[in-house]
């Protein structure tokens, strides 16, 4: 009944949201359609506020809309009455008893300690973390490269091999999510606003500083191919396979073997069924919670800074020091509402909106962008990517690879516990082949198309000299946040593209943060219990609070480095998980056919048709 409680509150909030959304929406539309009449009557910061209020109230409203299959919710008055009756002390006690003590306290203490150190000794903390990160990434570079490469190979094997046939949850289980929903949720949860920011930027950076593997002169025409190639490599199949390698074992042991739906379940074949209560399992779960909160909170903080930096660059609207904090507050409100309303309401609807905006933006870029250039260079880069995938994956050369590839892989691995667990939860009733296809092939296809479109366009604009994006970035201290604006300004429909770009940033961040909130609260709640609305809200607000602290005390990059460091253990865990899963399946799941053998069987077998004799010649 926790959900119906929430829908009672939803009714109350809805009554506030509708007028707010309508009023701000009307203002935004008036400014959009009559820029000369209305647009100049309102100041820049006011526009920013109105637009953000419109957007966040709209998102909250669609999250709160009731789901058709839900039972009738209690009236708003009942909920208010219950709120009045609730005893605070009892509520707190209940909150504590329902949580796993270690998972509740450890991340809270670590973040408190980090912020304490950051406030007391900012430079020393930053230096220490940076040194640790540099050491781990440099020393562990080969490990990350190997882990990612093995993950890709393992995913390929699952895709075509016999075990792709295994249906998660037994042969009679039906999936609870239709395929479009499944893809949308997996895709939008697995990737955040980084996709949007780096879309126009990453290829440009590789164009300016060609990777050593490509070995061409900077900003030369040959550098274009290398730049697109490395962008595809960093955001393609390799990155996404990290989620599948964590997700598939969780899903298999949870749905077919009855293990709990937690990250530590990947260790089931090693620890055994009883071992999932052990310290090791708790350690893995705690680390997963820490990695997730660290990863999401720093993303939220960085995204809000970059969002406002972009707006400052383009429209010269200074948000001040309070701006990012308010922005994070609004974002936190949206993702808390979204995750509290549940997967079928807020999370699914905002994810749907996200994918629609994403597709619309890509279509607009196709319409106004340099199509033939993108097509020609894109297919070329894609061809090179396929041919050179193995050498690229195993290329360990020097500082550049550590700073880009290894850092990236570690970042993806630090997101793998939450994204992998979410993929696992959604995959009940699906075949392993479908899971791998969706979470690796389909999602990476979507990101690769995006990077080819945006990266190709920005390279074209830069190379033909229609805008000097690199100079603009350099002028702002190398921030990737602003690259989109000079790019879109040089295209037709530039203003519209910028609006959509900013909207995409917010939606992409929300869709990752709401799933991470849900996953963290599931992990932190005692086994067998479901997180209550209050738990989900607590963890959502906690993530927001970490983001705000990062903004106030500084050290977003440092905390990000700390979160990235957790990618190391998960790289190892994912390899162990894949190994354990292979052993389990080798013992228990022998009666499946691979795609290859299935295809061979379908070929007509000529020798068996003894009864058909060739017609005799007359």
């Amino acid at each position, binding site marked *: 009944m926790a959900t119906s409680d929430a829908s009672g509150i939803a009714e109350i909030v809805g009554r506030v949201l509708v007028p707010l959304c309508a009023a701000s929406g009307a203002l935004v*539309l008036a400014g959009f359609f009559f820029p000369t009449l209305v647009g100049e009557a309102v100041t820049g910061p006011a526009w920013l506020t109105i637009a953000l209020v419109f957007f966040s109230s709209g998102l909250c409203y669609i999250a709160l809309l009731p789901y058709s299959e839900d039972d009738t919710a209690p009236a708003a008055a009942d909920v208010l009455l219950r709120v009045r009756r609730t005893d605070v002390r009892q509520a707190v006690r209940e909150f504590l*008893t329902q949580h796993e003590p270690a998972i509740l306290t450890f991340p809270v203490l670590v973040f408190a300690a980090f912020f304490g150190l950051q406030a007391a000794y900012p430079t020393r903390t930053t230096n220490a973390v940076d040194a640790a990160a540099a050491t781990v990434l440099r020393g562990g570079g080969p490990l990350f490269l190997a882990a990612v490469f093995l993950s890709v190979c393992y995913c390929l094997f699952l895709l075509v091999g016999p075990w792709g046939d295994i249906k998660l949850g037994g042969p009679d289980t039906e999936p*609870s999510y239709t395929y*479009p929903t499944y893809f949308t949720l997996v895709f939008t949860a697995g990737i955040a606003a980084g996709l949007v920011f780096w879309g126009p930027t990453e290829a440009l950076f590789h164009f300016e500083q060609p990777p050593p593997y490509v070995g061409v002169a900077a900003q030369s025409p040959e550098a274009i191919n290398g730049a697109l190639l490395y962008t595809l490599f960093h955001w393609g199949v390799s990155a996404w396979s990290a989620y599948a390698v964590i997700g598939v074992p969780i899903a298999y042991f949870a749905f077919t073997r009855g293990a709990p*739906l937690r990250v530590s379940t990947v260790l089931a074949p090693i620890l055994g069924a009883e071992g999932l209560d052990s310290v090791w399992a708790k350690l893995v779960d705690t680390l997963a919670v820490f990695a997730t909160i660290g990863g999401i909170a720093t993303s939220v903080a960085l995204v809000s800074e970059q969002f406002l930096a972009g707006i400052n660059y383009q429209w010269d609207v200074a948000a001040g020091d309070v701006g990012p904090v308010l922005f994070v507050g609004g974002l936190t409100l949206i993702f808390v509402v979204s995750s509290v309303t549940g997967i079928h309401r807020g999370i699914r609807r905002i994810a749907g909106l996200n994918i629609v905006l994403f597709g619309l933006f890509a279509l607009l870029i196709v319409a106004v962008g340099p199509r033939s250039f993108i097509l020609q260079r894109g297919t070329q880069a894609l061809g090179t990517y396929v041919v050179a995938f193995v050498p690229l994956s195993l290329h360990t050369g020097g500082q550049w690879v550590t700073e880009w590839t290894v850092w990236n892989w570690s970042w993806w691995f630090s997101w793998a516990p939450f994204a992998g667990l979410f993929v696992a939860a959604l995959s009940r009733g699906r075949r392993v082949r479908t899971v791998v296809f969706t979470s690796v092939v389909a999602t990476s296809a979507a990101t690769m198309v995006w990077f080819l479109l945006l990266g190709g366009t920005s390279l074209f604009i830069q190379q033909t000299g229609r805008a000097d994006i690199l100079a603009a970035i350099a002028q702002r201290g190398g921030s990737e946040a602003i690259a989109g604006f000079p790019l879109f300004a040089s295209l037709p*429909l530039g203003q519209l593209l910028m609006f959509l770009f900013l909207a995409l940033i917010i939606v992409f961040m929300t869709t990752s943060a709401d799933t991470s909130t849900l996953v963290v609260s599931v992990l932190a709640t005692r086994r067998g219990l479901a997180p*209550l609305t209050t738990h989900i809200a607590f963890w959502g607000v906690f993530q927001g609070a970490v983001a705000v602290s990062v903004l106030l005390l500084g050290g977003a990059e440092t905390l990000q480095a700390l979160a990235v460091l957790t990618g190391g253990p998960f790289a190892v865990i994912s390899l162990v998980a894949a190994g354990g899963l292979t052993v389990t399946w080798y013992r228990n799941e022998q009666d499946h056919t691979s795609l290859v053998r299935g295809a061979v069987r379908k070929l007509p077998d000529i020798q068996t048709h003894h009864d058909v004799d060739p017609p005799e010649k007359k």
Partner: protein
Amino acid sequence: MANVPEDSSDRTLEDVFYPADRVPFVEWDELSGAKPTVVLTGVVTLLAFVTGLSNLSQASLALNGPLTAVVDLPLPFVRFGGVLFAFILGVVTVGLQRRKRLAWRVAAVVFLGLVLLPLATFQPTDIPLLVMTLGTYPLVVRNRHRFDQSLDLSPIQIASLSAIFGVILYGTVGAYGLRAQFLELDSWSDAVYYVVVTIATVGYGDITPVTAEARWFSLSIILFGTGAFTVAVGALIGPAIESRMATAFGVMTASELTLLEDHIVVLGYGDVTASLLDELGDETEVVVVTPDEETVASLQGEGVNLLTGDPTDEDVLRDARVGSASGVVVGSNDDARDVLAVIATKNVNPDIRTVAAATAEKHVEKFRAVGADEVINPRSIGGRLLGQSVLGRGSSEAVLDRIGTGGDGTETDAPN
């Protein structure tokens, strides 16, 4: 865990991750019917109007969209097109809401015209209109069968409309033919302008007939034109006023009834109807069909739709749109007529869910035999509630809750 309140125990991880049997990407059924089509057409109308105004408010309008490379659109068309299309679409939206076939045909053409405008100017402000139009068009095409009502014009309406059309044609051709006998009338557009200005009795006087023939001709336009115009106004507005009056007296007109969809039809008014209407509340639209004028008068202003007619008559049921209703409740105090009403309902729409209230236990099986999906005997439920309550097996609310979960209350054929 004694201190855990009861609402935590019944939520499991299952509920968190699998809240429904099947979670679709979008609720297509809810968003692709005739009603959403009408709403979206309304939104397109509004967007076309605002976009048109926005284009008008700009000092200069550049035509640099992809369409200009293919065809040469006249600038005035692009400038005023948005607002003009919006006016047409406004009428069309009303027609679509009444499920008119003609409105659908016009919409199908106007939408295509509306796509041309954003493609000609291709400004950021035009893109929402383009996207909305392209998004609504498939829905309009998909729901083509839902807009099947003919315009149903009365002979006088047809006559007056064709008279107006005829006069304009006659006036235009005639004025162009006699252009030598007019001052400042040189082209076809001048002829149209002259005729409209004359019929509307505005008569600026910039174009004037100078010969006797031309004057007689102009007089004939004024007489026939204003005459036809006046008759048309009367013929078109009159029925609307009539239907307003009819509604005020508790009878829904056919055009109002055509708007109903997924509503509940209540046949007959009996002891249980009042509490039934309370229960249905604002959740869904309800039409009460009863032959009793007094009941109709007493229900005025209660927020339910009323139709005076015989609930056992198939034609009346068709008027109440039983074909597109989501359910029918049969519940007057006369079981014999109710059985007839169930038969009539099933004749009109065999698939509709029909719930009947039987006043006597012995009639329950008869209702089932004629096809009622569910038969409830309010008296036996009441008696059992009384019994449960006096024996102290929980309050009547708890028993009612059990009934609500599909329990024993509906098993009226079980021996009591």
